[in-house]
């Protein structure tokens, strides 16, 4: 899986801001506009719970959550990487460990210190969005590895069956299976799962066509 490229131009993005101090957002919103990130008054909320998580788009939306409000951690997080549905940048007033922890638990991948300094916005976006994308990439990798780990049992079974059926050693059996998976554009795990299932079906008298490896 190719590592994601760094995002460096944020034009076309949409900012969603969660704060109960909307009057202090002028520098943030002005700077975001200069960077091509849209800031609609309708996207400024007093509570994170007001955000409709089902409409969030991770490649477009960037959420700024004020760490000084109470309910920062209400958006659903992914099970492995604990990522929110879109990148979150924490706005720090009080930098005490409890607030930092709350924002990190909410899924923040970058921070902006209040009062916000215009020059700090681009670096915060750059780090926050690209860290989010990197985490998402790693999460997908982990998911893939986990799926493959679960499929190893079928791979081992398929190797043993192939060895018995074709009278070959384990390396050759693996090679036969590997070539078949590339030919049929299946992962090894999916191919072996199918083979084991079809073989089991025959043993149980079901009419499942048996696949040939050496065709």
């Amino acid at each position, binding site marked *: 899986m190719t590592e994601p490229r760094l995002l460096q131009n*944020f034009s076309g993005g949409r900012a969603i801001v969660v704060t109960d101090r909307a009057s202090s957002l002028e520098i943030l919103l002005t700077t975001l506009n200069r960077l091509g990130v849209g800031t609609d008054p309708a996207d400024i909320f007093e509570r994170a719970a007001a955000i409709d998580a089902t409409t969030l788009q991770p490649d477009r939306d960037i959420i700024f959550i004020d760490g000084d409000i109470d309910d920062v951690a209400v958006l659903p997080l992914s099970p492995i990487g604990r990522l929110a549905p879109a990148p979150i940048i924490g706005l720090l007033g009080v930098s005490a460990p409890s607030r930092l922890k709350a924002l990190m638990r909410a899924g923040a991948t970058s921070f902006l210190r209040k009062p916000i300094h215009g020059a700090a916005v681009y670096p915060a976006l750059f780090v926050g969005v690209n860290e989010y994308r990197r985490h998402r990439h790693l999460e997908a990798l982990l998911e893939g590895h986990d799926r493959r780990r679960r499929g190893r049992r079928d791979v081992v079974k398929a190797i043993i069956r192939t060895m018995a059926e074709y009278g070959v050693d384990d390396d050759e059996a693996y090679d036969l299976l590997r070539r078949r998976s590339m030919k049929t554009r299946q992962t090894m795990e999916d191919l072996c799962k199918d083979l084991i299932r079809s073989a089991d079906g025959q043993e149980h008298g079901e009419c499942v066509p048996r696949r040939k490896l050496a065709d």
Partner: protein
Amino acid sequence: MPLQNLQVGYLFSSTGSYELVARSMLNGALLAAEEVNASGLGIRLEPSVVNPGGDLSQYSALATTLLKRNIRHVVGCYTSSSRKEVIPLFEKHDALLWYPSHYEGFESSTNVIYTGAAPNQHVLPLVEYLLAHHGHRAFCVGSNYIWAWENNRILRESITARGGSVLAERYFAVGETDFHQAIEAIIEARPSFVFLTLIGTSAYQFFRDFRAACRARGIDQAKEMPVASCSLSEPELEAIGGEAVDGHLSSSVYFCSIQSPANLRFLKAYELRFPEGPTASADAEASYNAVWLLARSAAAAGTDDPRVIKAEIVHQRLDAPQGKVWIDEQTFHAYLTPRIGRSNRNAKFDLISAARAPVQPDPYLVHNSARFEAAAVPSLRLVS
């Protein structure tokens, strides 16, 4: 009561490794102040000139001195490192820095008015020109600081996206003048062009040594490996001098060779006032424009309050030597007219292309760059 006297600081390194350009900037600013004072605009500028001598630590010390004297407007800085050194001071004192030089972008301080070119007004047009007319193999040589690093990044991304390549990037300390090894490497690599981001005395020495090394090998350097720069200006051509002055490409919003009544007036006044030189440059014009924009805004606002002047400046339209110039209300950078020139034996530039109209500044390249960084060319091999 209308504002009558306006104190303004001029912060230019009229000595040091890039003194030539900085002196022309100071001249442009001084000329503008004298013209404002004689113009009947109803405002009198009182410049206080300080010289950091190219020493980074002196920039903040001298800027502090000016700001503590309650001067709220300072025109100055040439290098980005010096600008970044003083910006926190202007933010602390809520004063305005009028930065009159081209730069690499990715900045928009609320306490700076940028009258020089943003990267979409000089770096990108040059990259486009080079790729269209000279080829896709670049060799980058620059001074080791943000100006060179960022320009080379922009070039690398544009050229990689079109299947070209950057053969090498070499960086040298500001003021370095020994380029023997780099020149040997360039001649060995035979790039389509050399992208030069050296500044000051380093650049002048490179031009001379590169031309001499090529000539010794019978290579027509200007034709076969032209040097292209986004900062080369007329006073620097004079400093290069002799046999190495011609055939270099420069991307700028101003050249002395622009034929317009406003520019001829500017050049005549400049040469009359500063017969000893240095010759006018793009940065001298940007300094001249900055002072005029400040004076007009202050006169219209009736105050030197930076916030009021920022609100007023976006209404000003200047008939500058380069053409119409005005300030973008979103970024506080200037609308300017990109041009490309080729240096000739008279230490001037022949104009070879120009935009039809002033171009909106895009300091973050929001409208002029890819969303993602350039992808590395994948190294694939045939496996079966």
